[in-house]
């Protein structure tokens, strides 16, 4: 079992004819992902590595029975691409694009709230169910099939933790990169709910970072409603207030909202052990299993 994506997912790639879209489509197919179509306005009728391209997402969904989209569209046009995917409709939309203006995302977020579609991202590495399918830019070779769920705001930090999990024989059910932007679709609580409902996920790792209050809300959810054990990591303990640390969403406000300390305290209070190093997080997962 897994969450969000598996070998039955039928994937349309938005922006498949661009450099990144083309490269990662090939990687996704090599991993075994069932990529059934591409969607690029004006490029309908073309083919990329044997994948048929359609002018619209709705057209791709109709012709190829697609239920999932991965979006590699450049930031200026990405919100429109996401709205198109939400309108198709699809079950899952994964937005890889980094740098989408916040106001555009506010509109997308508002529209996504009125659909049953899971929106993941933007500014995320994607979603992978090891051995079944990967959506996005995650390096497939470091993942292994197993019973640990992983949800993270950061790409490379996810790889660091997964590499360590895998090398210690702890495979993963599904890993979800929720993205480093201030406004994202699926948040920690959404992902944790899905893992809690998945009988094969026996432990969860959540990697948070400074900025916002998502981790605090996750702590409340874990405390009140979750039985599956969770181990945590929070990046940005040494970040100064008022400075954006790479991710648009990774910023401690002047008054001290969004600090690592607040998040670590909230998680500890909810019974979630928080590692001082990525290795320590994996130690805690080992303890659970």
């Amino acid at each position, binding site marked *: 079992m897994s969450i969000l994506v598996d070998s039955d997912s039928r994937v349309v790639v938005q922006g498949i004819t661009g450099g990144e879209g083309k490269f990662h489509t090939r990687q996704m197919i090599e991993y075994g992902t069932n990529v059934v179509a591409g969607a690029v306005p004006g490029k309908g009728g073309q083919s990329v590595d044997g994948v048929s391209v359609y002018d619209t997402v709705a057209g791709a969904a109709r012709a190829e029975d697609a239920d999932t989209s991965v979006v590699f569209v450049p*930031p*200026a046009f990405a919100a429109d691409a996401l709205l198109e995917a939400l309108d198709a409709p699809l079950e899952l939309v994964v937005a890889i694009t980094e*740098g*989408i*203006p*916040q*106001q555009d*995302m*506010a*509109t997308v*977020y*508002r*529209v996504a*709230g009125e659909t049953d579609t899971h929106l993941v991202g933007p500014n995320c590495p994607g979603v992978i169910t090891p051995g079944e399918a990967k959506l996005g*830019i995650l*390096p497939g070779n*470091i993942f292994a099939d197993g019973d640990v769920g992983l949800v*993270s*705001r*950061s*790409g*490379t*930090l*996810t*790889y*660091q933790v997964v*590499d360590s999990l895998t090398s210690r024989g702890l495979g993963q059910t599904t890993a979800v990169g929720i993205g*480093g932007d*201030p*406004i994202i679709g699926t948040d920690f609580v959404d992902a944790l709910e899905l893992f809690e409902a998945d009988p094969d996920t026996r432990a969860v790792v959540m*990697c948070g*970072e*400074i*900025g*916002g*209050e*998502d981790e605090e*809300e996750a702590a409340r959810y874990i405390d009140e409603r979750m039985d599956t054990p969770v181990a945590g990591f929070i*990046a*940005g*303990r*040494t*970040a100064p207030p*008022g*400075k*954006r*640390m*790479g*991710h*648009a969403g*990774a910023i401690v*406000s*002047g*008054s001290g*909202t969004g600090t*690592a300390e607040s998040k670590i305290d909230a998680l500890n209070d909810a019974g979630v052990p928080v590692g*001082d*190093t*990525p*290795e320590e997080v994996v130690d805690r997962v080992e303890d659970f299993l």
Partner: protein
Amino acid sequence: MKLHEHQAKEVFADAGIPVPESRLAATVEEAVEAAEAVGYPAAVKAQVRVGGRGKAGGIELVDGADEARAAAEDILGMELKGLHVDEVLVEAVVDFVDELYVGVTMDRGAGEPVAMVSTRGGVDIETVDAEEPDAIAREGVDPVFGMQPYEARKTVYEAGVDRAVAGDVASVVRTLYELWDDDDATEIEVNPLMVTADDGVVAADAVMNVDDDALFRQPDLAESAEAADGDDLEAKADDYGFDYVRLDGDVGIVGNGAGLVMTTLDLVDHYGGAPANFLDIGGGAKAERVANALEVVFADDSVEAVVFNIFGGITRGDEVAKGINEALAQFDEIPTPVVVRLAGTNAEEGMEILNTELVTVEATLESAVQRAVDYAEGET
């Protein structure tokens, strides 16, 4: 990107929000002339893009040409919270009977803009929020429909603003929302909004943050961003397109991906060192970009050791190794020890390419950071 006060006030004035009469000055002479023109009492205000300027000595009230000269001499050229003051805004002081707070910001959790009004103006609004959250009236705005007039009115009346100025304040709220919407602001506020004895309102300060990711469609504001007053190293890193933040420590850090770089900083601290910077080279970096990153980190004189940590997804270890070799080959003597840890895509190829006479190679993130901390402390 944060605008300077004078830039934000120009935007506000163009949109019809009353602001005090003011002039920008870059020299003491200009400042005195400006004070004579706007009249006394006047305020001489450092134009640096950081909060708390008053407490840090960046704002002086003057009542006459001699005082204006003295204030300008004090403030121009001073270092304020690490930033060099190149310009002052000389502004007429407003007679007021009340100070309000008015702002529009992005509510991250709700994914929508929120308008805020409070009668506790003139103090740090985040302190008010922490101590007395009910003193701020809030109204979430549906970004699809935009702010309705009633939403502005409701916020103003619920905040308990004096009825005599409620209409004017509501109009400021609506204008701020329009600016927020039109100019891709992420945060826009007037604190304080002065209420005058004749029931007028004047924006005595102006804060406006514009979404960096929207500058491509805000050419005028992007131009304002050019007039930066930031740290020289931050400006250089910006030219190379790196996410870079300078810190106080002596262990330089280069990595890929925001979360992993933040983690590397945290580990430096965890093992008893102090990080000198955050530098994210981004995804898929080629050799030249890697060399540029090392150049930026070495340019910081306080750096005593560098840790280079790459976990390759789309970034390839062999490219990174090539970049490190090329960058270090340019030096007769390498400025500080460099510790490298490569993992992920093509990491093994990278390890083979790395010139181990120039760098120390470590297998794990933890050991690489520990080694760099040791080097920074003078151990070899």
